[in-house]
């Protein structure tokens, strides 16, 4: 496991600085960028209404129908086409629930609707991670400290070596294997993420500090496991193993898809990492710039956008985490135009390209002698 201590210590020892894509920006330009993005945000906020509400309700309806249909089909899972259809529908249901609905609702994107079933304070999602823990680790920690080495724990999830700023140890030879395991069991990785196991191991935190969180995780994980692996199979008693396998497969499909999309968000070529020193005294404008440079989009059609929870617009999401995600596609051209105007990169590519680069990075960083071209941070 790569501890965050090693990350911070290493950051100071890295090779001499390479030019960063935002080095050329003046303070006035950074302020102007801040004003432009603030204006976009306000414009969207003022425009929220029936269409946005109708959209999320429509997605929720589709998700619930897929769930009921999928589980129903699995009860006829002794017929292979029904088993496949059931797994397909249930996988899509979990993907929609976790990403386009869950992730976005818990960001508060729909709090303005004043509907308790879509309010970030009440929503619970169909995965092992309790929403209360996740909201803290994601909305607060990840979005505040996006791509900051030593602070953003989504850099590798405390398991993977994702940058050469993390000092290589022989354990890292297994990077690709850990990545595959994390992907396959991603819902458990996310659930345990907030326990900060690497900090428990290194003694930075004590068990008492995380006891409450651990209790929440035990409770939620038990509910989910009982539902998917005990209750539904029992209901279909003659074919219980088929239902269990179907539910497990649906969870696996969701895990692999979510891992793929999430890792494409911050690790394709061109995305930047930052040191804590760099971001000291960060202005609103430079916060926007870091969010932009630390994120990458995936180009694709409407279906990709919906199935990825609009994390295909990771850049827009990091600029405006609490705007309803369906709005990201509309404002993306404007965001890209601002990047062009100020000479900043707008990292995007097809799903194959982006994930290919992520896989390549994971494999390269398993070995001690490679360097990651574009993301060596400025020494502190």
């Amino acid at each position, binding site marked *: 496991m790569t501890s965050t201590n090693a990350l911070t210590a290493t950051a100071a020892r890295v090779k001499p600085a390479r030019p960063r894509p935002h080095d050329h920006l003046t303070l006035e330009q950074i302020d102007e960028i801040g004003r432009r993005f603030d204006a976009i945000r306000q414009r969207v906020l003022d425009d929220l*209404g*029936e269409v946005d509400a109708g959209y999320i309700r429509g997605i929720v309806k589709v998700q619930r129908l897929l769930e009921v249909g999928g589980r129903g089909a699995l009860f006829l899972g002794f017929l292979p086409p029904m088993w496949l259809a059931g797994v397909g529908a249930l996988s899509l249901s979990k993907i929609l629930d976790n990403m386009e609905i869950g992730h976005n609702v818990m960001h508060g994107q729909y709090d303005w609707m004043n*509907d308790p079933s879509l309010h970030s304070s009440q929503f*619970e*999602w169909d995965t092992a991670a309790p929403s209360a823990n996740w909201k803290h680790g994601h909305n607060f920690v990840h979005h505040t400290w996006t791509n900051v080495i030593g602070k953003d724990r989504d850099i590798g999830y405390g398991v993977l070596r994702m940058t050469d700023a993390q000092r290589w140890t022989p354990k890292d030879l297994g990077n690709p294997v850990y990545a595959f395991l994390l992907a396959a069991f991603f819902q458990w990785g996310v659930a345990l993420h907030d326990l900060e196991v690497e900090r428990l191991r290194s003694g930075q935190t004590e068990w008492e500090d995380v006891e409450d969180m651990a209790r929440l995780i035990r409770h939620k994980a038990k509910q989910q496991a*009982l*539902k998917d692996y005990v*209750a539904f199979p029992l209901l279909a008693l003659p074919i219980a193993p088929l239902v269990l396998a179907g539910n497990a497969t649906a969870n696996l499909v969701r895990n692999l898809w979510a891992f793929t999309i999430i890792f494409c968000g911050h690790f394709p070529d061109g995305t930047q990492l930052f040191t804590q020193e760099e971001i000291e005294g960060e202005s609103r404008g430079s916060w926007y710039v870091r969010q932009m440079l630390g994120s990458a989009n995936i180009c694709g059609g409407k279906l990709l956008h919906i199935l990825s929870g609009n994390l295909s617009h990771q850049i827009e999401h990091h600029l405006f985490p609490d705007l309803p995600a369906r709005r990201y596609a509309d404002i993306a051209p404007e965001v890209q135009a601002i990047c062009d105007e100020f000479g900043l990169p707008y990292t995007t590519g097809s799903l194959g390209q982006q994930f290919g680069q992520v896989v390549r990075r994971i494999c390269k960083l398993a070995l001690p002698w490679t360097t990651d071209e574009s993301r060596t941070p400025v020494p502190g």
Partner: protein
Amino acid sequence: MSTLLPTSVVRSILERLAGPHGLDRYLELVDPLLVRGEDRAVVTDVRRETADTTTLTLRPNRWAGHAAGQYVRVSVEIDGRRHARCYSVSSSQHRDDGRLTITVKADPQGLVSPYLARHARPGLVVGLSEADGDFVLPAVRPDRLLLISGGSGITPVGSILRTLADEDADTDVTLLHYAPTADDVAFRDELRELHTRRDNVRVVIVLTRDPAGSDLALTGHLTARHVDAVLDDPTDVPTYVCGPVGLVDGATRLWSDAGLADLLHIERFQPAAPAEVDGDATGTITLTASRRRVANDGRPLLAQIEAAGLSPQAGCRMGICHTCIKPKLVGRVRDVRDGRVSSCDPEDIQICINAPVGDVTLEI
């Protein structure tokens, strides 16, 4: 299945299977009224009473009924947002067809009342609360009763009249109602009918903008002379007053001056108007969970927090539904309804009707 297992066991199994969202989120795909965790109603009938007043007939999914004079909190989605307002139930408490009515007057400055009064159609689903309020008759009906209403204040009074009619009560009821013109009187025909058909019901309508059309040649707004004209002796007569602030304050003064304040029951109808900004407001609002600080401008906390870009849960915005309750950790707040200032102790407060007095820290 319920012959093999008790319904409660079946329900809890279904809830577990429907986790983590809960069974309601699936039931409402079939019919919004099937939910158990939320009181809802569907509009079944819409009737224009006057140019700006509409009666909506509601069929609730489950509702415990009301005592005549009480109100319900109705929530409706307008342009994607849910808003809640309180409306008096206008139907009789003995209505037995599983329905109730509310009679909504469109406030030109309002948002929800114009929507309900002008755009509600049968099939609209609204949120509905249990009935609340103490503007109610005693269980043993009094021998004599005076009802004074103005404008939309006719709604709880209408419920009282209809209830007494259903009970065939012996109570001698006098209604003194104020409206600008005859066309502005909701339930006009029904009131006339009660006046004519029943010996013990007397309806006196004063038209403030059409003196020629007023009963008993009464003109203008409520005065002692009006009371004398309709009632020979108000002592021992329970009196219920409902309507605009001017009418209610006027009645309160008259009854206090006569030493009869104990007989008066009042219900104020005022629109959910935005509170004035307090010129002397000082201090800072600190929000611990959002890690934000907002300079206090004297308005209620909910308004200031929303102006800062946050969306805490809110409901009726007038201190009734308790949806907006949040922990106050440090500081004092002032209830904008009656001016009472709280203690400094940590406590849960309704942020919609409390404004900061100096520095305040909330867990939001």
